[in-house]
């Protein structure tokens, strides 16, 4: 085991509030800390600014096997200022990663949508990077009636 690096310590500190809100981790599920590690890898340790991202998710997902998710980032999407990457993580799934969308100025609009699996009620955290080096984040809570990682 490697010792706790300064970066990790910072991340753990940053997510401790979220951990308290989300409750203790259960079983093999990812924890908000796992999601934060995933996010830190994505951002290279930069602390994201909250805002400019709209996450569309149902408030209550009846079937966790297929939950519609859409992400829109406020960006001009011009060749010198566009969103390059959007990371979607699920704090309460067995594995926190969901998808990474990679956009280009040819995308026209910084948006993407898909359908995801959710094991339980949890927070979805989205992080976006822009070509100007900005790192943005937003999160949204979703209640799941029947978990989608069965078997």
């Amino acid at each position: 085991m490697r010792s706790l690096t300064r970066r990790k310590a910072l991340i753990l500190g940053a997510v401790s509030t979220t951990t308290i809100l989300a409750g203790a981790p259960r079983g093999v599920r990812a924890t908000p800390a796992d999601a934060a590690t995933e996010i830190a890898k994505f951002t290279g340790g930069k602390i994201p600014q909250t805002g400019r991202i709209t996450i569309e998710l149902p408030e209550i997902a009846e079937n966790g096997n297929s939950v519609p998710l859409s992400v829109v980032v406020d960006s001009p999407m011009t060749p010198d200022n566009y969103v390059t990457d959007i990371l979607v993580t699920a704090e309460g799934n067995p594995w926190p990663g969901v998808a990474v969308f990679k956009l280009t100025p040819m995308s026209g609009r910084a948006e993407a949508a898909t359908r995801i699996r959710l094991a339980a009620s949890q927070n979805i955290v989205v992080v976006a990077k822009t070509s100007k080096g900005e790192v943005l984040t937003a999160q949204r809570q979703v209640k799941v009636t029947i978990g989608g990682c069965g078997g």
Partner: protein
Amino acid sequence: MAEKPRIKLPKDAKRGEIIQIKTLVAHIMESGQRRDKDGKIIPRMIINSFLCTFNGTLVFSCGLESAVAANPYLQFSAKVEESGTFRFSWVDDDGTTITAEEKIAVT
């Protein structure tokens, strides 16, 4: 994978218009979390990446994890400046690639 991917985009558009593209491909997206009746883990088999190009230039791509639902649906947009062909490809864990293409006329 016998079933053809389903792709929805306009047949024509105005120069500089931002169009919406919807894709859906038939795939089990086996998560690697499930067990069979003997309690053995069913190995992961998912589409792990997707790519869309227009006239050879990358428009949109993504990496997917097992948290993406079966028959992965993806929706994104593209700004079109000229007529041409969108090419789509989905890559599976074992390297199987599904491809498709759609033309658009830009005026």
